[in-house]
């Protein structure tokens, strides 16, 4: 039994000799064993940073936005930089699970669960920033069109800032639903295996009574496909709308029509970089080398080259159009970016985002895991600088030279940003301990067709 249909044209997606039971055991192992020291110390470190961040947020809410380094000229800085950075990171998960599902890319299955988890946590971090930068945060409910006592005053539906509210909340909740529906069968697997009665009760609750009937699987696949179809335009719309927060304004440097596609490419670029950063560590710690292979890393690196090159072309196009438009304010904004007081930010961005991913054209480098890890960190940094460059350098030189200014972050700026990284890692580490980090059921569907060798389990009742 258990035929092997080895495909000669493609690298196997699952290495070694695995049976269905092995897949279950491998993925459930981290959940079933006691937390180890490495995990506990990483969680403690992340928690300390998170607590410091929450402290800074509370200080900010108590003191006011004045505790940030903003001034009359640069009135948006790290807050929105961090917001766009986190939203961008949150783009890989849904792209992997939705767009790659529609394209029937089976290699997505090794990474989609964790990428989606990362998406959800990143969007939560992103949503923190518009919420805390509102100043009068107790009036925050007014972003939603609720019947109100302010006469007949309603939200401005012509404003991209309001579109953003709808885009981010839709993206977050739809991603969450998509992720959870995929998790249910895997929670059922854990429920049926786990020994501890408390854990069993919790996983039973989380599994929604899933029993794996053929009719349920049929609906499951149908729902996954429809949600993928919905999530695909959603991914593209969300970062397009985020870019319109800038593009619909009349600030030189922001007022460009290239923003929506350029932001989407940048978001996918940074999202994949973060997925690589996290997955390379997780693969090592959880010994998932058989499932997340060098081939997977190479595939992701190819996406990094494509999106990185798109971002590079966008940077150059911006420069060209600024010159070609003949508008002196526009030309100055871009010349000032590269040679003005923020030249260091611009060239950090250029080096990290445009030059570093081009090294992946060399096969030896894009299949080298340590090199990939280093580049992924570079891209994460570069993409933060991209948003900083767009926001701060465009603002710090206005039309009136007497208002020209420079932005210095305060400890609250830094604390809130570092703190969100801490909170993100707390959430991700908890996920990595208690949730199945690979989609168990989905991996089994591709086991026979894509594994190096398929093994019949010895865990079976024999006739």
């Amino acid at each position: 039994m258990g035929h092997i249909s080895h495909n000669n044209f493609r690298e196997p997606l699952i290495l070694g000799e695995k049976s269905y039971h092995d897949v279950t055991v491998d993925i459930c192992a981290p959940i079933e064993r006691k937390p180890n020291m490495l995990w506990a110390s990483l969680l403690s470190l992340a928690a300390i940073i998170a607590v410091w961040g929450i402290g800074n947020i509370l200080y900010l809410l108590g003191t006011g936005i004045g505790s940030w380094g903003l001034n009359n000229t640069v009135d948006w800085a790290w807050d929105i930089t961090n917001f766009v950075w986190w939203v961008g990171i949150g783009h890989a998960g849904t792209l992997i699970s939705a767009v790659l599902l529609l394209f029937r890319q089976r290699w997505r299955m090794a990474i989609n669960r964790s990428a989606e988890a990362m998406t959800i946590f990143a969007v939560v971090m992103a949503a923190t920033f518009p919420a805390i930068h509102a100043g009068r945060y107790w009036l925050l409910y007014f972003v939603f069109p609720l019947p109100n006592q302010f006469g007949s005053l309603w939200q401005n539906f012509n404003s991209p800032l309001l579109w953003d509210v709808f885009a981010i909340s839709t993206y977050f909740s739809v991603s969450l639903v998509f992720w959870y529906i995929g998790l249910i069968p895997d929670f059922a697997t854990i429920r049926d295996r786990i020994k501890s009665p408390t854990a069993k009760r919790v996983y039973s609750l989380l599994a929604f009574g899933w029993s794996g009937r053929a009719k349920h699987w049929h609906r499951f696949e149908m729902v996954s496909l429809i949600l993928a179809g919905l999530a695909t335009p959603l991914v593209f719309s969300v970062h397009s709308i985020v870019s319109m927060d800038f593009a619909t304004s009349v600030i030189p440097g922001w007022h460009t029509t290239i923003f929506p596609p350029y932001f989407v490419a940048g978001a996918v670029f940074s999202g994949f970089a973060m997925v690589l950063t996290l997955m390379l560590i997780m693969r090592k710690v959880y010994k998932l080398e058989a499932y997340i292979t060098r081939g997977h890393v190479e595939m992701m690196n190819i996406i990094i080259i494509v999106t990185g090159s798109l971002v590079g072309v966008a940077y150059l196009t911006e420069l060209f159009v600024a010159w070609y438009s003949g508008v002196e304010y526009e030309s100055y904004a871009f010349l000032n970016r590269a040679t003005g007081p923020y030249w260091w930010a611009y060239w950090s961005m250029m080096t990290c985002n445009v030059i570093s991913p081009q090294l992946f054209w060399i096969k030896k480098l894009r299949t080298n895991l340590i090199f990939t890890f280093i580049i992924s960190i570079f891209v994460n940094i570069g993409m933060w600088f991209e948003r900083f460059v767009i926001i701060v350098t465009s603002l710090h030189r206005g039309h009136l030279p007497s208002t020209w200014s420079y932005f210095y972050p305060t400890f609250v700026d830094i604390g809130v940003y570092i703190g969100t990284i801490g909170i993100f890692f707390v959430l991700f580490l908890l996920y990595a301990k208690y949730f199945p980090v690979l989609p168990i059921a989905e991996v089994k569907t591709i086991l026979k067709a894509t594994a190096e060798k398929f093994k019949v389990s010895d865990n079976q009742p024999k006739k």
Partner: protein
Amino acid sequence: MKKETIIYAFYNDDDVLLKDAQAFVSQGLWVSDVFSPFPIHGLDPIIGVKESKLGYAAFAYGLIGLTLALLGMWYFMIHDWPMNIGGKPNFEFVYNLPAFVPVAFEFTVLCTAHGLAFTYFCANGTFPGVKADNPDPRTTDDLFAMEIKLEDNPNFSLDQIKSMLSKSNASEIREKQNCETDTCCNK
């Protein structure tokens, strides 16, 4: 009280189950359901799982979302309190429509996805707190179970079904009496 006799045939491999299911159905034996750790492709037409209508439901939810979004924006921006923002007045719905596209799209997706998810849970009867009814805990790991109900197959006796199954490639056969209350089994 209605009594049900269920026979479960367990398999170690999805392809073997698929072949046997095909054989049983061609002999007129009705397979009521299959429990598996992952979707078995090609099984649905054999055991008569009908194409799900969830797609139509999703479309309906999408239309509801789109209508609500457009109606809402018309009411807030055009009807109830038209404002002149940046020299661009809100007096006509059609002229404002391009600015309404993003929110209309997002709200359509929001309603479709959540409506669909809710309908999916209702159709499956899966909610937090519901008890799972898979015949063996390993059917969510690497075991595949075929469920045959005696009441669904009036042309076969219990022994006939059992002998058919024992001649097949099933690795294990189990029989279960199901009743609506616990007391009726004891009688």
